[in-house]
């Protein structure tokens, strides 16, 4: 469990997924990918960590993922095989915005 900082980048310990944190709750949380806690960009994955078959739906480049309460939002900057989760709850892709292009 740790506080995650808006703007920080994290990577999956078990697949290629990388994310940037766009919004985060003001408390200690556990952000997971493939069922395993995500790690800093320069950290080594824990030995023996494997992707959970229950949490292997994959991430898509450029998609933003959020939980039901909308308290967290992460942007997928590199896709991978795992699914993202927050404290055991799987994150869902956010609906695409339909804003007119202004520039």
């Amino acid at each position, binding site marked *: 469990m740790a506080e995650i900082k808006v703007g920080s980048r994290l990577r999956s310990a078990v697949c290629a997924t990388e994310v940037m944190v766009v919004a985060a709750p003001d408390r200690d949380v556990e952000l997971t990918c493939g069922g395993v806690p995500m790690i800093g960009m320069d950290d080594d994955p824990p030995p023996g960590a494997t992707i959970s078959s229950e949490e292997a739906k994959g991430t898509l*480049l*450029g998609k933003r993922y959020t939980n039901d309460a909308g308290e967290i939002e992460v942007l997928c900057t590199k896709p991978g095989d795992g699914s993202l989760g927050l404290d055991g709850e799987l994150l869902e892709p956010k609906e*695409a*915005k339909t*804003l*007119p292009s*202004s*520039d």
Partner: protein
Amino acid sequence: MNLMMLLEMAASGFGDRVAIQNGQDTLTYRELFDAAGTAASAIVDLSCERVAVLDVNTLAVPIGLFAASWAGVPFAPLNYRLTDTEIESLLERLTPAFLVSEGSRHEALSGLAQSALGRDEFIDMARNGPVRDPDWAMDPDMIAVLLFTSGTTGAPKAAVLRHRHLVSYILGSVEFGSAAEEDASLVSVPPYHVAGVASIASSVYSGRRIVQLANFSAEGWIDIVRAEGITNAMVVPTMLTRIVDALEGMGPVELPSLRAVSYGGGRMPLTVIEKAMKLLPHVAFTNAYGLTETSSTITVLGPDDHRAAATSDDPAVRRRLSSLGRPLPSVEVEIRNEEGRAVTPGAPGEIYVRGEQISGEYLDQGSRVEGGGWFPTRDRGWMDEDGYLFLDGRIDDIIVRGGENISPGEVEDVILEHEAVEDCAVVGIPDEQWGEAVAAVVTLREGCSVEPDEIGTWVRDRLRSSRAPARVEFRVELPYSETGKLLRRKVREELVGPPPGG
């Protein structure tokens, strides 16, 4: 956060698509990414702490922007209309700078920078040098862009946009990879304008090909829209005025590829947007309002709003065609009175804005952002019941006549409806009885004439008598900035002389 992250995503998501096109010359997203890395190596190796690009829209601009982001130094696009002496004083503030300048300026300026390259030499170097491995810093507080804005007095101010402002703006307003492969965006705003910078970042993130237009002319714009199958374009009001005039003069011209035109950067005359919607009925128009200090757009009047307003019988809805639309979902807007309190819908006051993309900061002058993260725009306006924002103008331009606040734009809109009038500017001039009086400077359509009194009567019949200009003068043309802002200060100075001490 770093703008480079957006380009990296584009390069890995659709690297073979064309990112930027200038004439026949193109860069794919992958090539733009590699060129940025190569140029970043040069910036780092030469210990340059800023990248200054003095050029029209060429490949040097996007390469320079992303190379600076990669190297972790600010990108400063400079106004090519400035004199060498003016550029020299800006470069002093950017030293030690990595200067890229358009060929003819290169010789005069090359001694003023740590490193100076001609534009073609720079592009060639970036495209052909060794590729760099990704190593950019992700510190969201790094300065991404410095934009010099012309102050009314003294030296130009440099607005500071940090990576977190620009990345937040893009994430809040653009969906990644949302453009279709054939989409193409025509960029004709100059690179030193915030919309020039924002359009590069927006197009890269959406995956839309940018087609650069170096020097705007209405005919050139129409030609390139047809030849390149342009789908999207952003223009300032003076450009749309000239495009509409050109289209009317050419007879029936079809621009079948064009789907969306956004406009902003100044006041759009109602007559021009109405004509544009009639001439190009298949085009979706968007009005975008924003400031340099707000990382471009903060409110939009979208295509549906345009259509609803243009076809409505309800005056309150119809009026929205001249509004700025509603705030982006990621931005809050509040109107405050002189005591600093938020006002109710319909009441005028200063436009305040808050959000992750808002900078409100100037180099060496600190932040103008107030308590709670609210930025005072120095624009005066009001909001209707449904949250549509209307702009009266710069607070400094408001005419105070006998205690009554008069918006120059309101009077200008009415004068522009007169058939003999081509363009006009309304300003306040000193008046013994009222404090200030309304003055109008008007340009007439070819072959038309009108008496000054007729303009006064025209306004009096349509607005309150206090709005009628006490003085009307005729000119051949009005002063505009090259990005389409009417320079009311110049109009006023010409009528009454420079302000004391200014």
